[in-house]
């Protein structure tokens, strides 16, 4: 009996001792990757922003100098303004297109899955490919201007005109490439709206418009906020299309925050300063998602 109990004891002891070891072992590969390529660079960004790190790898500690320089740098405020303006165009546009197409998909009787596929299709391409094809679409002898010419309307300078036009043109490309994702989220949200509420409103004589504004939109509010958050974060990270289509131009009209970060880092090799832009980018995105979170929580209660 003593032998038996000892065996049981040993087994349970081994069981307990074995679990933590195996758990850690299974996490270990991912943990190593995270420590080296996520945690260290995140802290490293803050650390580097306090130095004058250069391409050579030499650096000295400069305290808050980079932040002081950033807040005295007109270029920084310019790029922040560009990004804000871009987001102000892109986010509402994406939401309207996604919500519009989602509503259409939800109500159409036939061909729903075909249309859903066609509308989602651009999502699987790259922003680079989107940028290349839309550059041609926007050119003075490109698709849109070619068609306008047939109507006798002069060429529209989509990518060379004033700032609002250039940013709007870039926003259209982003919306084209990625609204399908938000659309699918909204379609799923629409499906979750209880049928009987809609039916009851119908019986009460509510028309399609008032049903949309008074039932669909309020019930969809959490989903809409989720879409707003992801679209805003995406808008603040815009880079690929700008790099491919305008190179930040014309005359820095599309020189956004991430483009400035890239420019300072990989054109001027001013890594300390570029890291500072990165930290500020993080803070701005973080702040915006906090505000959106707060608004969303307040809406709920």
């Amino acid at each position, binding site marked *: 009996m003593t032998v038996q109990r000892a065996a049981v004891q040993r087994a349970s002891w081994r069981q307990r001792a074995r679990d*933590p070891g*195996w758990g850690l072992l299974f996490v270990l590969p991912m943990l190593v990757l995270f420590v080296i390529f996520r945690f260290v660079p995140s802290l490293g960004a803050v650390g580097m922003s306090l130095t004058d790190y250069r391409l050579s790898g030499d650096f000295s500690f400069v305290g808050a100098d980079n932040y002081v320089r950033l807040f005295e740098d007109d270029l920084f405020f310019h790029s922040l303004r560009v990004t804000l303006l871009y987001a102000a165009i892109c986010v509402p546009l994406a939401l309207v297109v996604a919500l519009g197409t989602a509503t259409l998909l939800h109500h159409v009787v036939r061909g729903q899955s075909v249309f859903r596929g066609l509308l989602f299709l651009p999502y699987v391409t790259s922003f680079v490919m989107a940028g290349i094809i839309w550059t041609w679409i926007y050119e003075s002898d490109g698709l849109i201007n070619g068609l306008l010419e047939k109507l006798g309307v002069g060429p529209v300078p989509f990518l060379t005109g004033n700032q609002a036009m250039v940013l709007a043109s870039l926003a259209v490309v982003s919306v084209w490439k990625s609204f399908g994702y938000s659309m699918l989220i909204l379609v799923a949200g629409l499906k979750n709206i209880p049928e009987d509420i809609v039916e009851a409103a119908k019986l009460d004589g509510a028309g399609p418009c008032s049903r949309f504004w008074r039932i669909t939109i309020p019930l969809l509010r959490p989903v809409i906020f989720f879409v707003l958050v992801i679209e805003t974060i995406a808008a603040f990270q815009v880079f690929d299309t700008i790099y491919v289509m305008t190179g930040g131009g014309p005359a820095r009209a599309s020189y956004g925050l991430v483009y400035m970060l890239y420019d300072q880092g990989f054109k001027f090799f001013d890594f300390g300063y570029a890291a500072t832009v990165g930290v500020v980018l993080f803070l701005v995105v973080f702040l915006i998602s906090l505000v959106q979170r707060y608004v969303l929580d307040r809406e709920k209660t």
Partner: protein
Amino acid sequence: MTATIEAQTPPRTYPTQAHRPRRNRANVWLTLLLVLASVFTIVPFVAVLVLAVSPESAPTIPRQLPDDVTLDNLTAVLSASSFLRWTLNSVLYSVVSVVIILLTAAMAGYAFARKRFPGSTALMWSFLATLMVPIQATLIPMFVLVSRLDGVNTFWGLIVPTLANSQAVFLMRQFIRELPDELFDAAKIDGAGEWTVFWRLVLPLTKPVLATLGIFVFLWHWNDFLWPLVIAQTDEMRTLTVGLSTLNAESVARARIMASAAISVVPCLIIFGVLQRYLVNSVATTGLKG
């Protein structure tokens, strides 16, 4: 799957005779608007294709449709050594990343879902917290780190830093947590070791979610731009997206660029064509976002 069910079941409400014409008219408008939206999404693809098969410097869209159709651009692109090299790099970047992420994320997800070890909750949260840090914000320190380790212009420098993927870990954890406890108990009673449980139980049971995750990881990497742009500085290390952007910046003939763009998007279109339902349905259920 939802779509098939909907197609089979009859409409829930049967409109009365009086309502039918009005309903039909409304439906025609809905369909028309959807056709219009689809034109917006599809026309650029068609344009790429038309330009890719138009003879170089011959009149083509938008003024007129090309008189001749030629495959010269496509064959020229496919026989250019740098284009093939970029394609190979993109394939390596995407496929290797998919394999390693699926394996390591499944392992980590299994540990977070089924094992208790000191600090597991805190660790899961710290993984998730990295989602809040935009990749661009840590671009500079990542680059400096990799270049100090001599990883610039190498495959490991391109691939390894992109493998720490918290969305993948979290998705696997959620899925493995839902698996019935009895399966794991039964395996333990049968005396299966930890590795056997993982290989013979966890991996086969998570096949559907692994497939979904695999598609997304492939698309993220195939379409990725900023990281390859800074890490691949020589022509022969470039991925397709970076290569295309350099073609676009140099004054390469339009037909040639469009042919390259057309070819680069083919793998994604194939994935889309074959796995469309799967991809479309998983967006809402998994919340994966590129």
